[in-house]
């Protein structure tokens, strides 16, 4: 690895950074099944795993099916308190032998490593994604960043094998400046890749909100100085530890905004289920407020309010639809309604990725579409902004519709079709909004489930892999 020169913050940057204070947080994190085995957890948590559950998990230790090696167990006290009363949250956070019952799947189905010009950066669109933290406050069992979180080695496009590294300011900033310089000199497009200016960076990981305020501030300022107009922070901390969004964090953001008033912040939050932010009555039901809406957990509501009180910060929710957690139209309906009511936009729902050890969580694509569609019945237009998205190598793709009716005279469409629409397209977006239509396969969990029934492929989702239309392969 090259060792670039140490990053020199500008005077403006230093003035901002000198005002930042770190908050102090006690997340009450418990990591590792061993803690539950030995009883070395707070007394109330001792029954979180039954003796049978613990025995079934530890039996797999050291085997190919080692659940803890796939993803270490990790939970915060806040999440535990909610999960006690919620089966879906338990599925999200508790390890289960089912996770490794089927080990098929691809290592990197989105082939994201192809788009990584410097360590810790995925540069696919005019938006770049950076890894700034290698852990989260707790671990979702369905996490698809397991190679980063569990520190696994990945194969790079050049064939080398190494653990995924984090982005470094001193490497990333020169890359952004150089990319944007070339784009500007070349009339708005990169001369080789055709990409636009890098305008937006998504800070991800891991969860950037595990970092201290000073670390987050250093990233925000460095990105702003490099000319980034919008910064996203991808975080599940509102669900895991909402007290992280405290006054010291907001004070840092306010100073940042004073220093860089044109830069937008987009908090990309991650709620899977309304149990993660709503209070429950003794009987397990949500609590209706006399003045309307349902009652939120006080600290989660306060955190959202603090963010939304700042007009330069947007809050968007995005979440995968996962078996046993939120494959439930009623839960998703409540979630979309309550998030919108509190000023959180419903952005994407995702189909689960076809990664190794992931089948325990996957809902088939067509079923996920039906669940989301069902959940949006009875919601108003502004509450139904969320789309179902599946990540293709070429770009984010919407599962736009699933029909029950056949298309008359079209072989392969006897059971209806699935209409896929490319929402984003890498580089200079040549294929944006183009459509692919495939014959239905209710079992399909990934694009490959339709390889033998492609009916129309304007978007090139299949032709990119040399997969022909059904009509033409039948003729051949």
């Amino acid at each position: 690895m090259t060792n670039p020169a140490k990053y020199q913050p500008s005077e403006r940057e230093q003035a901002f950074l000198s005002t930042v204070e770190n908050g102090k947080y006690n997340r009450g994190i418990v990591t590792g099944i061993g803690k539950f085995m030995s009883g070395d957890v707070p007394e109330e948590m001792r029954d979180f795993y039954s003796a049978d559950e613990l025995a079934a998990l530890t039996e797999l230790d050291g085997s190919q099916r080692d659940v803890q090696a796939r993803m270490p167990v990790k939970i915060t006290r806040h999440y535990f308190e909610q999960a006690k009363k919620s089966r879906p949250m338990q599925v999200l956070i508790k390890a289960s032998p089912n996770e490794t019952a089927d080990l098929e799947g691809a290592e990197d189905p989105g082939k994201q490593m192809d788009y990584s010009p410097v360590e810790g950066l995925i540069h696919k669109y005019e938006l770049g994604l950076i890894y700034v933290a290698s852990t989260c406050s707790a671990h979702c069992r369905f996490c698809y960043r397991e190679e980063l979180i569990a520190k696994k080695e990945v194969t790079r496009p050049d064939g080398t094998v190494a653990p995924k590294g984090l982005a470094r300011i001193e490497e990333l900033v020169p890359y952004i400046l150089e990319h944007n310089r070339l784009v500007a000199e070349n009339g708005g497009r990169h001369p080789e890749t055709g990409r636009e200016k890098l305008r937006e960076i998504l800070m991800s990981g891991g969860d950037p909100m595990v970092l201290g305020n000073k670390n987050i501030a250093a990233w925000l300022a460095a990105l702003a100085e490099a000319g980034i107009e919008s910064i996203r922070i991808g975080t599940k901390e509102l669900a895991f530890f909402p007290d992280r969004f405290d006054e010291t964090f907001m004070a840092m953001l306010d100073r940042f905004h004073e220093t860089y008033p044109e830069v937008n912040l987009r908090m990309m939050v991650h709620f899977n289920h309304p149990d993660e932010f709503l209070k429950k009555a003794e009987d397990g039901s949500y609590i209706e407020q006399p003045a309307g809406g349902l009652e939120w957990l006080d600290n989660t509501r306060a955190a959202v309010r603090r963010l939304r009180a700042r007009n330069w910060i947007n809050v968007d929710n995005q979440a995968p639809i996962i078996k046993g957690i939120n494959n439930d139209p009623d839960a998703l309906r409540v979630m979309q309604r309550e998030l919108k009511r509190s000023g959180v936009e419903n952005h994407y729902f995702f189909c689960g990725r076809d990664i190794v050890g992931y089948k325990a969580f996957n809902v088939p694509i067509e079923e996920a579409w039906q669940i989301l569609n069902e959940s949006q019945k009875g919601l108003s237009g502004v509450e139904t902004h969320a789309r179902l998205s599946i990540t293709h190598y070429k770009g984010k793709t919407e599962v736009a519709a699933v029909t029950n009716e056949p298309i008359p005279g079209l072989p392969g469409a006897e059971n209806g079709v699935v209409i896929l629409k490319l929402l984003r397209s890498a580089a200079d977006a040549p294929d944006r909004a183009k459509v692919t239509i495939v014959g239905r396969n209710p079992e399909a969990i990934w694009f490959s489930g339709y390889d033998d029934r492609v009916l129309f492929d304007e978007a090139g989702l299949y032709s990119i892999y040399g997969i022909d239309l059904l009509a033409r392969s039948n003729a051949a």
Partner: protein
Amino acid sequence: MTYVVTENCIKCKYTDCVSVCPVDCFYEGPNFLAIHPDECIDCGDCVPVCPAEAIVPDTELTEAQKPFLALNAELAESWECITEQKPSLPEAAKWDGVAGKLEHLER
């Protein structure tokens, strides 16, 4: 859970751990560093960078190392937080690996 700084940090204090800690949970004494157990988020990033191999998860402490769990908690409360790497102590290389360093711990 938390990670724990153990005996071999004493009189070495390399501070490589401080440069990688995402949450700034290291606290600095005269010749030792301590991790605040409530603030540590169990990422383990500090473990491979420690030249003295002094950092251990609390689940893997040997019997001899176990007292360091409470010691880290106690010292982190009384010492100042350290957020930037600095040069190691002058005789770090000489003391790295020496047994029985606990008696040299300065508070």
